[in-house]
């Protein structure tokens, strides 16, 4: 069994340490590592609270303790320091909530926070104000940091032992440290350098700020010195053991480790130095510190991505302000290989004097106004004129639905054509995701499947229908479909279902549009089937109406209608009530399957209803996203799968919790973040390759 412990360091707050830690975790997860991410920024935000995108939530496993997300500091203070046994690690299961549960397929995360959890029941403000689990002045004294690291070692050992039992060999533990060089950082560095450069790695995250860079450079230098001192001390120790009469000359910094080897050389933590020094190839870590250290320079202005701008890193070097070691850890001797382009908060994260136009022009100050050059979209190959605008207020009756279908047809053809091109161009990630999740037609296809199932399982003979409805112009004159809509309307009235709580126009339009879209491909409905289908639709509408009625009107008004349709999921228990009322007895559907079937059908119907209200905008939005991903020179298709973009698309198209106008604004930010994430992934990938982490 082997494991890596990677410490993410920074000297300044807000430079993207946690982002780096999460991306590194994800990268290692993709490489089939079992990953534990430990949040050590105890005075900062709890990492668990920052997982605000569905991507990270879906891909992470927050470690729970006593029924709530574990707080490392609370466990340290209330268990470890009180001599109690630490929670045991186990592989996740649903039976037992005791201990820490590991999910091999997700990033296991332990959060930390110095503030106590707020007492929600207390009315006394003081109870909730400024309650620290432990005073930082106490926690950060040398003794407590020593114990805190001992505590961390116990946590890590428990984790590696249990994974070892599972016979999984790839384990990575990532420490998301607090910024600066106070608190536990020195002890963490001591611990990881004890482990040696094969197991203990350091990733320093800096901004372009000169002071920050120099400070990070010094950190890297200091870490290397600690390692070299330990290495040399070990070499001298073993030499003196072999030849005990030879005088020992220890350089400053070597004595401490030399004496440790002398008085306590049985500690497992320093095995690397006990057994490793004999291996000659270990010298490579001294010659080449990039084998265990790396730097990421985050939040670099996007303008620096383009050739007309340059960052004169050498200006920092020339004055010898930057330690020489930095040159050794820079990939291909180009600092740009460590840049992450993302300009959030950039105004105070970099030193503008070091950035200039090529040939040393001093016009950099106007960076923001120059942005437009680089945000220009090369060309818009999708002719928007082809997309006929749908104007519901001016079109009445059955023509209305036919018109919708025609528009959808145009949209779908455009989108499908695009998707086909993407497939040919190896943009599988996007096409797969669009087909599976965001394609505006997806929920209708699903509903259509339900109807095929109904017809399969009902007593009625299967009617002829044409799957390829798009090619059949006569389809839109389908009288049976009109008959069905009429029948539903009649039944709807007979059941006296009258809705007051939501917009009638919207609901009526959405109900009928959904029915029309999903049933349009079918033809030659028999009267009995129309009757049966209308029963099902009316049932669905009745349930839906009851649920609306139940809602407090004021409360409902706070929700977007579309969001409401999506979020109010029906459950099996609820549907049983209708079963008891013998409502289903009129259906010919097989009784055994109908409960679950109706629940699924209802939920899909609601989704489709919400989707139909936005069909045109959804198509437009999606095409816009694809355009950005595929046509913009600087965007990689991988970016669309990044959490923030996925999240926006989910919220807009699937969850309906964000309007298109808001989404378009946040999309721009989202893409910026996505490039940043992609760069993180690319650069971190390169780093871990150099680190020889396979």
């Amino acid at each position, binding site marked *: 069994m082997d494991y890596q412990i990677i410490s993410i360091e920074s000297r300044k707050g807000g430079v993207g340490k946690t982002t780096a830690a999460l991306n590194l975790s994800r990268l290692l997860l993709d490489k089939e590592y079992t990953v534990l991410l430990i949040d050590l920024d105890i005075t900062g935000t709890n990492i668990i609270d920052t997982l605000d995108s569905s991507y990270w939530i879906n891909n992470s496993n927050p470690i729970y303790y006593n029924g709530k997300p574990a707080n490392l500091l609370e466990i340290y203070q209330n268990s*470890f*320091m*009180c*001599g109690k046994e630490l929670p045991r690690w186990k592989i996740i299961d649903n039976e037992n909530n005791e201990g820490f549960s590991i999910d091999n397929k997700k990033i296991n995360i332990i959060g930390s926070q110095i503030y106590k959890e707020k007492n929600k029941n207390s009315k006394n403000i003081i109870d909730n104000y400024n309650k620290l689990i432990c005073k930082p002045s*106490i926690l950060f*004294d*040398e*003794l407590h940091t*020593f*114990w805190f690291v001992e505590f961390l070692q116990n946590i890590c050992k428990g984790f590696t032992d249990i994974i070892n039992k599972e016979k999984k060999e790839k384990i990575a533990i990532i420490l998301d440290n607090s910024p600066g060089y106070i608190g536990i950082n020195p002890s963490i560095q001591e611990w990881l350098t004890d482990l040696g450069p094969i197991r203990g790695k350091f990733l320093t995250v800096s901004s372009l700020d000169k002071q920050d860079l120099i400070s990070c450079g010094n950190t890297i230098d200091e870490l290397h010195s600690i390692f070299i001192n330990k290495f040399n001390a070990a070499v001298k*120790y073993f030499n*003196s*053991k072999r030849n*005990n*009469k*030879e*005088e*020992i000359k*220890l350089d400053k910094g070597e*004595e*401490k480790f*030399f*004496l*440790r080897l*002398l*008085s*306590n050389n049985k500690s497992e933590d320093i095995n690397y130095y006990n057994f490793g020094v004999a291996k000659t190839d270990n010298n490579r870590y001294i010659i080449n510190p990039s084998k265990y250290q790396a730097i990421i320079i985050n939040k670099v202005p996007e303008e620096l991505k383009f050739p007309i701008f340059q960052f004169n890193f050498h200006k920092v070097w020339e004055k010898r302000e930057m330690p020489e070691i930095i040159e050794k850890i820079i990939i291909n001797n180009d600092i740009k290989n460590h840049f992450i382009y993302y300009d959030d908060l950039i105004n105070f994260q970099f030193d503008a004097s070091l950035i200039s136009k090529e040939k040393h022009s001093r016009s950099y100050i106007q960076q923001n106004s120059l942005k437009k050059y680089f945000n220009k979209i090369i060309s818009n190959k999708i002719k928007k004129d082809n997309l006929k605008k749908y104007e519901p207020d001016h079109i009445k009756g059955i023509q209305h639905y036919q018109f919708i279908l025609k528009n959808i047809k145009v949209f779908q053809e455009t989108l499908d054509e695009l998707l086909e091109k993407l497939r040919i161009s190896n943009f599988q990630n996007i096409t797969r995701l669009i087909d599976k999740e965001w394609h505006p037609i997806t929920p209708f296809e699903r509903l259509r499947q339900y109807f095929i199932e109904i017809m399969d399982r009902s007593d009625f003979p299967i009617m002829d229908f044409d799957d390829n409805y798009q090619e059949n112009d006569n389809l839109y004159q389908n009288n049976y479909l009109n008959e069905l809509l009429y029948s539903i309307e009649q039944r709807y009235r007979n059941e006296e279902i009258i809705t007051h709580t939501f917009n009638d126009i919207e609901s009526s339009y959405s109900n009928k549009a959904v029915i029309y879209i999903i049933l349009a491909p079918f033809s030659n409905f028999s009267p009995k089937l129309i009757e049966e289908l209308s029963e099902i639709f009316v049932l669905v509408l009745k349930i839906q109406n009851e649920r609306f009625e139940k809602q407090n009107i004021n409360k409902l008004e706070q929700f977007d209608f579309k969001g409401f349709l999506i979020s109010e999921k029906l459950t099996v228990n609820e549907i049983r009530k209708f079963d008891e009322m013998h409502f289903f007895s009129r259906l010919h559907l097989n009784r055994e399957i109908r409960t679950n079937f109706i629940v699924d059908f209802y939920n899909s119907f609601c989704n489709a209803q919400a989707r139909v209200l936005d069909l045109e905008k959804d198509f437009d939005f999606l095409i816009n996203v694809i355009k950005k991903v595929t046509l913009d020179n600087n965007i990689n298709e991988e970016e669309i799968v990044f959490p923030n973009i996925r999240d926006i698309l989910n919220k807009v198209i699937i969850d309906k919790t964000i309007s298109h106008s808001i989404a378009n604004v946040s999309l721009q930010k989202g893409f910026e973040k996505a490039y940043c994430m992609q760069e993180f992934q690319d650069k971190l990938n390169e780093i871990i390759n150099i680190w020889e982490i396979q």
Partner: protein
Amino acid sequence: MRFSLPDYNEINSVNAYFFPENFFCFIPIDKKKYKEQEDKHIDNNNTCDDSFHELHKRVGNEYYRKVYPAQSSALSFSERTFPSYRFLLPEILADDWLAIVGWHKKHSRDHALHQPLTAYIVYKLLKGGLDGQPFQIGGRSLLDLCVDKIFLWEKTDYIKEYLLQLGVKNNDDLFNDIPISRLFWKSLFFETAMVAAIFHDIGYPWQYINRINKNLNVAEFTLNNSLANAEHILHCFKNRLILYPFNGYKSLKCNTPCNWENSLLKMISESLTETHGFSGSLGFLHLNDHTKEFPSKKELPFHNFCIEWAALGIMMHDLKDIYHGKDKLTLPDNNQMRLEFDRDPLSCIITLADVLQEFARPNVNFHIHEDGSEFTYPNNCLSSELIYENGNLNLIYYYSTNEGMINKQLFIPKEEKEYFDLATGYFDFSSVGISNIEMSAMLGL
């Protein structure tokens, strides 16, 4: 070699003066017990912050600016060597002020500043100042001389015996004088000496209590019987290194006379009331014992030894009165406790540094006038110097005022007699070729 507050500050400012950290932590600590102490400390509202604040109010800026950094570094060092010190520090600081302003001779002492400055002297003697040149006797560094004596394993055999009891193997290379073990012992010696020096006067508050108790005992009011205390101490610490000097630096063995225990109890009882060294070493050991994890797999014999050895140094720096007995002019009552350099070099260094540390110690001056009274905290002694020349060791104290110089000169004959008399003085440096030690006070910087 000259010692002064400006020199200490200069060494501090270039970060050359640092506390060693090679043997961190000395003992495995039971975190539960430590936390109990810590919680109690916080609950009592008796924190170091408050104590520093109160001291500041009482002594004013000038003296406070000397004490605060010195004690802060001591506090930081204590985290590695004596974790419970932080719970004791408020008492040390409170006592310090009482001691400075006290008019009673016996209570007139200071230690909040004195202890770190004594540690500085130890540091400079053993490691050298900014020039890196340690104190030398006969061309050999003092630290090497100390380790030379240890490696003889003659009079220092008790150290080996104690280490073997702690679990060090007899065949360990570290008992042989080879480069690797010399380096080890030099570091161990230096580190322990620094620990002993910085905490050497923590026994003052206890001595004060014990003295009051003794006075009450005389008046047949037994609040706390010192003999009963002595019995308890002997019972608890009979196997510990601090009791070795009472037996002539030996452990109690089968050849110990049956009536020796009575003598031992008497010495312990007297040590409790007459010295602060013994109380200090007991406090140091007990507080460490109290938070020690036991039994523990993490215990390391040499690390553990540092505690015991430092306690020995804390005790011996102030056992002069027990050694001499009541009559200082006759032969010593307890000659077996004499501080011989070849037997207990560590205690010798601490005691020498303690004797040398006179500079920057404050005296309070009260001035009464019609509107009330004023007070200041001047310090008369500016620096001290240690010179070795042809078998002679000279301790010179430099004063800024005639008054201070004359006052010191009045005490010198008594101190020379008690500490440095060749035949009966507490110190015996003859094993390193020092035949004469003299003290002098003069005007100067």
